[in-house]
């Protein structure tokens, strides 16, 4: 008998390992780092969250957070408009930090200090969220300017797509409005946000939910 080495053929195992690596790499999307933990209720709706969104989150204490998707320039312009309205100046570093954030929840006055913190420190930042009462409705301004910027960016993208000879659907380029509410939050708080949207005549809202089984469908 030849002196066989104690090794075994690992080729199939390695093949499988790489297959799995490829699968997980392609299928996983990274969870973005959000300012608050929100435990959404479940529903039977199987509509996937759209790409182009303006999202208001409400955590279980009723604090409001604002976030939007879009390119860096869009967010930069949004912060510019808000800074002008609230007579604030931001340094280039602060603007860069703002663009990197997924969402945030603080008063406009706290914003410079908030942006100077690291993302880990921001989680412990004591804030009451974005004010949305009738006297000081900053959330309304965020949504209004966010919508304006998203619409103008969407228009550019639409024209670009038309130039390429595609037949784009104009609606796909408009921002969608998403409400991400914690199940434990009191509805009155969500209603404040809904009323802000309705004041701006944005009546088509979407609630983020996790999927549950539809009792109408058979197992």
């Amino acid at each position, binding site marked *: 008998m030849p002196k066989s080495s104690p090794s075994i053929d690992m*080729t199939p195992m390695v093949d499988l390992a790489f297959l799995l690596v490829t699968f997980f790499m392609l299928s996983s999307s990274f969870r973005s780092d959000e300012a608050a933990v929100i435990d959404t*209720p479940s529903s039977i709706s199987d509509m996937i969250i759209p790409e182009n969104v303006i999202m208001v989150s409400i955590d279980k204490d009723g604090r409001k957070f604002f976030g939007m998707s879009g390119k860096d320039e869009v967010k930069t312009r949004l912060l510019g408009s808000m800074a002008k309205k609230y007579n604030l100046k931001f340094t280039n570093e602060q603007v860069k930090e703002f663009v990197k954030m997924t969402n945030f929840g603080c008063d406009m006055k706290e914003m410079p200090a908030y942006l100077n913190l690291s993302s880990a420190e921001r989680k412990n930042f004591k804030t009451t969220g974005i004010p949305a009462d009738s006297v000081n409705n900053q959330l309304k301004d965020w949504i209004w300017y966010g919508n304006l910027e998203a619409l103008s960016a969407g228009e550019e993208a639409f024209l670009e797509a038309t130039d390429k000879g595609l037949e784009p659907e104009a609606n796909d380029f408009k921002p969608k409005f998403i409400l991400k509410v914690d199940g434990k939050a009191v509805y*009155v708080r969500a209603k404040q946000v809904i009323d802000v949207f309705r004041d701006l*005549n944005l009546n088509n809202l979407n609630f983020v939910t996790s999927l549950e089984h*539809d009792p109408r469908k058979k197992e």
Partner: protein
Amino acid sequence: MAEIAESGGGGHDKGKKRAKKQSTKVDMTPMVDLAFLLLTFFVLTATFSKPKVMSLVYPAKPKITDPKINVEVNNAVTFLLAEDRIFYYEDAFYPEGNAKGKPATTLKEANFGGGEGSVRELLSKLNRFVLEKKVTLDADLTNKKIADTTYTRKIREAKSANEALKVLIKTDNDATCKNFIDLIDELKIADIGVIAPVDIMQSELDLIKAKTVK
């Protein structure tokens, strides 16, 4: 791969064909290590499902200049959400001693479940018109009697028909978002076309208070 060093330097054994073949082997151990490291990383960090959204169209805010219209609601049910309980009444609200001489509205309680006295059971009874229509349309669709577009149009027509159930949702100050979303969910399951979240009236709040305070 992962060959033990014993045969590692065997490539230089002179005159043996077997030895030459072995020399093409590369030690893949580090690569495999890396592959498994990556695999573990992706398995642990992967989030599979993208979050889902539930669409809800709110009625437009009436302008101050708009004339006030008193809407006669027929075939409606109003759900009242309290902290952890859900009440409902059918038709319009009639206060005690109203001009029309109808009996005063009393609240009935429902629950979120699938069984007796649940919202689902109630809605399937009240919205029978749409649900029965849907069953026949579903059958027509599977038998290819009607096209997809006709199906969606007819469903929409049925949902907005006069006989279809309309639902009003009112919440008191303690109602949670979970209950609200759960209720909307039940309405979608029961194919309710007209859903209107509206402000609660003081008289309704009083009724809830009478029910919840013992």
